[in-house]
């Protein structure tokens, strides 16, 4: 986990430096008082210092100081499936509307735990129920196709 901490710190540092540099273009002070760049400059300046301290703290940390570990086998597969299913959903929605991508998303998550002949129908029925409850009953906007599903 030590390496992950250092990499995380480095990413935060890189973003903070980028935002810090961008802050200069917004104007530090105007004739009324602090400009649009005043607060971002101080905040991202502080963030640069804190990210650096975090990296130093992580480098100094003993190898086994954290109880956290990366997930293995089944848990890792579930986590990857969760993120993967969300990405698949986002890519398919513009083409297919809501119900089919949602059913595919839920199927990907359920297939690890249940037989396919249970997972796929359950995912499809759940997607239709979500459409009915959230769109028809609660009046929320869903990314439906031209057939309204």
């Amino acid at each position, binding site marked *: 986990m030590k390496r992950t901490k250092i990499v995380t710190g480095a990413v935060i540092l890189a973003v903070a430096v980028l935002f810090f540099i961008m802050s200069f273009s917004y104007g530090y002070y105007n004739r009324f008082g602090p400009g649009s760049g005043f607060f*971002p400059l101080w905040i991202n300046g502080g963030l640069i210092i*804190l990210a650096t301290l975090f990296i130093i703290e992580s480098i100094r940390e003993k190898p086994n100081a954290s109880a956290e570990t990366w997930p293995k086998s089944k848990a890792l597969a579930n986590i990857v499936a969760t993120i993967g299913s969300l990405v698949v959903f986002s890519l398919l929605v513009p083409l297919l509307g809501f119900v089919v991508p949602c059913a595919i*998303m839920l199927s990907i998550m359920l297939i*690890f735990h249940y037989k396919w002949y249970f997972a796929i129908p359950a995912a499809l029925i759940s*997607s239709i129920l979500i459409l009915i409850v959230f769109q028809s009953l609660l*009046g929320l*906007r869903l990314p439906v196709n031209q057939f309204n599903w």
Partner: protein
Amino acid sequence: MESIANLLNGFATALSGWNILYCVIGVTVGMLVGILPGLGPVTAIALLLPITFTLDAIPAIIMLAGIYYGSMYGGTVTSVLINVPGEAASVVTCFDGYAMAKQGRAGTALGVAAIGSFIGGTVAVIGLTLIGPPLARFALGFGPQEFFAIMVLGLAMLMGLIGKSVIRGMLSAFIGLSIALIGMDPMTGLLRFTFNEPNLMEGLDFVVIAMGLFGISEVMVGYEAAGSSVPITRISKLFPERHEWKPTMGAIGRGTILGFFLGLIPGANAVIASVLSYSIEKKIAKDPSRFGKGAIEGVAGPETANNSFSGAAMIPLFTMGIPTSPTVAILFGAFIMHGLTPGPALFQSNPDLVWGIIASMYIGNVVLLIFNLPMARLWAKITQVPESIMYPAIVAISVVGAYSVSGSLFQVGVMIISGIVGYIFKKVDIPLAPLVLTFVLGKLMESTLAQSMIYFEGNFLLFFTRPISGTVLAIAILVIVFSFVSVIKGKRDRLASDTEI
């Protein structure tokens, strides 16, 4: 007297039409959230916030507040019956609650917790009724200088109290502030850090970020901890023995007072309330060795304290418009989403709303007492819901919620990225609570600071010439200094990793 009359009007609002139904739905969902391990009040409120888009402000906030205080009741059930805290504030209840369950006294542990929770929760709402209006009137005299100072104090307390490292707490807070600045500058109208992306013109959406950081990341963490279900202990007699009433009521009284005062302090949280209550009970007990083996005070005190805390935490929100914990920050977001600004003017501009919510909290506590005393075993069965069904449901609700914020898949993308970031931050011990609080307060902090600097003609030191802002900022500086000193001396206790989540 004025408060009593207003409260009666509030009861008329809370009991009218659909409001009472939304109150019951809120506390029921809160109970469920408290019971289901891995699903805390912050996650639940963030997930359900978009569903309230179509509701009026009063029923929406009545329901969301019900989830918050309802979850404090629910967390007890799993702590006592299966030794798994449903939410972070019930961790200490496991010590003696589960020990009591193993002795065949699960019913008594749940009964005492329900009575304590009811007393703590109700006293806190009475406090809100009595203290709220005068405090709001006092806060009406505050300028941007005072509000900025109080926000800084809240963040200093939070960074000082949460997590192993002050650096990581501050890092999290500064990340929240930095991403809050994305979008249009409210003072000048200039676009900042948008990279020409039209979806970023209005900034990142709080609801979407919260759903990702808490909902999606919680699913990912939950998959790691997924395990088999534990058989439920039998529940019988719900009330303590005659000789146990005196120590029980003493613990409830102390828990109520402790939780209430901690609720008023920006940066404290329900976990601190329950942990401190447990320590106090153990310290003043004639025989501390009983603790951990089924001491009734070890259940009564902490359970009372966390409920008293959650009621009292509404006071700074209602009177000053300052959220003091992550869950209250999400409620703050709910107010904003419904076009309301929490703060001292709310008591005057929207008395129906304020008193309706306060009255609903009295009703909600009564409903929760009924839910908990005779229906404990029924709720316990919910712990048997498998993660393989619960987590896909959370993901599906998150997707629907994120999309409905602005009808754009861009928000779903932001939620996915927030989820991955939240997961990594949990892995590397960066607490999420400061990030959420600063994100929700970022623009307000910037505008109050800018207004103050204009007033002070650019001299920051003049903050210390005003009695309230000067004192509050001085306390904030002391809190940060003491936090660093405690780290250097190695005396820093980890009260909670990432609380209320």
